[in-house]
């Protein structure tokens, strides 16, 4: 049972130049060992700025006459890569939103997917005939969630008209699938009830004649009061399957599992109080979600076929439980050892040992972004970044870079 000991904690506050413009997305740039982030757009200003931040600033040493060493730290360098105006194409949205920011280290391009429907590519070194900033695709209906596959070859997008669109790296449509209520018939959730009370033998008698494979209580799939109605997508670590969590018919939240080719594989069984948080463990065996009860919140696990596979309860104080706008998010790290549970006022890191879940570390984080608040480093398995954007003027937006051992 290993402890998580915090060995590195860096904070970057955007300089005054960005005052009034919130941080909207952040991602890792492995090629340059830095962080890429976007500022804006806001309701009043459709400008988006793409900025690279180098958090590994080298401090400078100055030796004074008396032999004491004084150091001054050069603040983390940031460079503004580019900026452009991105007026929202959709009249329904007051303000466009960055749903996905991804950086391709091999071609030095950043790709943004916006809620209004635009997919924008920013090339740091455009070849002849290529633009620096280009809108490579547009989904008229509007986008609700977007996620690149782990091998960076496929982009999965869910749209406002309940379709899932798959695009290739060159932004050509590969396939698209409509999410309908007919999908619910895809999986027949027969659970043989391993280890459950109803399958234990209680002796002969009328009760023993009950069918043990029928559970005593079946969930209907009632929505949680804290559900944020967002769609979320999570790919399996090998990129062969992805899970999409949406609300079906405004009544029930379901998780659909699609293969990479867009074929529906299975649908999750109904769970009362299931929320929008979704994260597929990269190792592939568990899909994590959140289930809210009246008196507690559980992290629930599903298998690829949609059946439940265990759960554990989160340790929340009564104040944390009652927070009305708390939208809990989940994120596995790259080697599947730590599950980050992102709450409104802190981020909890949970690890599993011998099928028991341990809360190993808690970091105070406030006002994190609602899309991708915590991004784990793809290669260093216990390093992550948390991006926050508070109210524009009082709490300055900042990054936190945390590494544990």
């Amino acid at each position, binding site marked *: *049972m*290993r*402890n998580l*000991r*915090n*060995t*590195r*904690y*860096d904070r970057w506050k955007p300089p005054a130049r960005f005052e009034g413009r919130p941080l909207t997305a952040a991602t890792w740039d492995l090629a340059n060992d830095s962080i890429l982030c976007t500022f804006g757009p806001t309701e009043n200003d459709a400008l988006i700025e793409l900025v690279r931040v180098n958090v590994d600033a080298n*401090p400078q040493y100055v030796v004074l006459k008396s032999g004491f*060493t004084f*150091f001054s*730290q050069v603040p983390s360098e940031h460079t503004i890569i580019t900026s452009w105006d991105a007026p929202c194409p959709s009249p329904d949205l007051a303000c466009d939103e960055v749903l996905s920011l991804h950086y391709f280290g091999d071609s030095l391009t950043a790709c943004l997917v916006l809620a209004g429907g635009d997919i924008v590519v920013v090339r740091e070194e455009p070849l002849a005939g290529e633009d620096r900033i280009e809108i490579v695709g547009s989904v008229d209906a509007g986008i609700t969630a977007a996620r690149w596959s782990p091998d960076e070859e496929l982009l999965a997008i869910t749209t406002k008209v309940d379709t899932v669109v798959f695009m290739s790296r060159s932004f050509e449509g590969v396939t698209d699938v409509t999410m309908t209520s007919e999908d619910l018939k895809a999986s027949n959730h027969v659970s043989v009830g391993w280890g459950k009370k109803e399958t234990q033998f209680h002796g002969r008698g009328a009760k023993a004649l009950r069918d043990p494979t029928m559970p005593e209580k079946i969930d209907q799939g009632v929505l949680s009061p804290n559900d944020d109605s967002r769609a979320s997508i999570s790919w399996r670590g090998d990129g062969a399957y992805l899970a999409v969590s949406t609300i079906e018919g405004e009544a029930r939240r379901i998780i659909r599992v699609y293969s990479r080719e867009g074929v529906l594989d299975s649908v999750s069984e109904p769970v009362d109080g299931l929320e929008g948080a979704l994260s597929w463990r990269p190792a592939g065996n568990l899909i994590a979600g959140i289930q809210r009860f009246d008196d507690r919140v559980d992290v629930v696990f599903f298998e690829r076929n949609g059946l439940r596979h265990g759960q554990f309860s989160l340790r929340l104080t009564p104040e944390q439980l009652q927070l009305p706008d708390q939208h809990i998010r989940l994120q596995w790290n790259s080697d599947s050892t730590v599950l980050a549970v992102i709450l409104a006022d802190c981020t909890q890191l949970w690890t599993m040992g011998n099928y*028991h879940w341990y*809360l190993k*570390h*808690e970091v*105070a984080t406030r006002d994190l972004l609602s899309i991708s608040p915590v991004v784990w480093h793809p290669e*260093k*398995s*216990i390093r992550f970044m948390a991006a926050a954007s508070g109210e524009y003027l009082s709490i300055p937006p900042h990054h936190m870079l945390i590494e544990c*051992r």
Partner: protein
Amino acid sequence: MALHEFEVQSHAIDVAFNADTSLIAVLHSRGIAIFEWKDVTVPSTSPKLTGRVTFRKGEDQQPVYQQICFVGTNEVLVMKRSEDCSVVERYGFDDDTGRMELTSSEPTSTPIACTLSSYFQDGAVYPYVQGKAGDLHSLTSTGQSLSHCKFPSSLPWVDIWNGDGPIAFGMSGNGHLYANSRLLVKNCTSFLVTPAHLILTTTAHLLKFVHITNVNGMNFSSYFYNIANSNQIWKSPLMTQRKMSDAGALSVVLG
């Protein structure tokens, strides 16, 4: 499942033991709790709270507390990250007030410190910090300088052996074990330093004992044992005090 479980005021960040494991210091987000554990050999006695510190709420930007270690019988050091740099605070037991108080607070000589630890020698404790570049800095004026103990980069697990001169052993996240800047093995899963030996487990399920002489003279082919499921050696402070000549002194917990 645990032998003893005790609660602290808020979520625990780090734990440290003193040299003879009679005191346990727990760093949590609102302060420090010191527990006394008399009679370790009698399992039924559980640790009792003997001291407590609550951190003052300073300026708006809350400092982030990271690690804790003991530096004397009644003194602890806490490493925290403030606005620009790492700061080490010393808390000691004040005989006048009868409470634990903050006695000093200084930025570390390296701008950003990654680890705070201490090594014991001849009954004294020598704390040190490691910077981001793998440089080690002693935090006391007594004790030997650690300036020549430099790792190629910051290593999360560090221990110092002090014979003729200090040798720092460190392991990286991917299993590279270094003695100062010399790479010893690439497949280490955990290690432990005792007054005479370096003990390490490897990914090949071997437990190796290496006699420490000087940085360049360590022979790795001697004394190894095969263990079925090697993974970890837990460092119990008891081990560092006992000489290897004690029969049965070595207890290896395999994780």
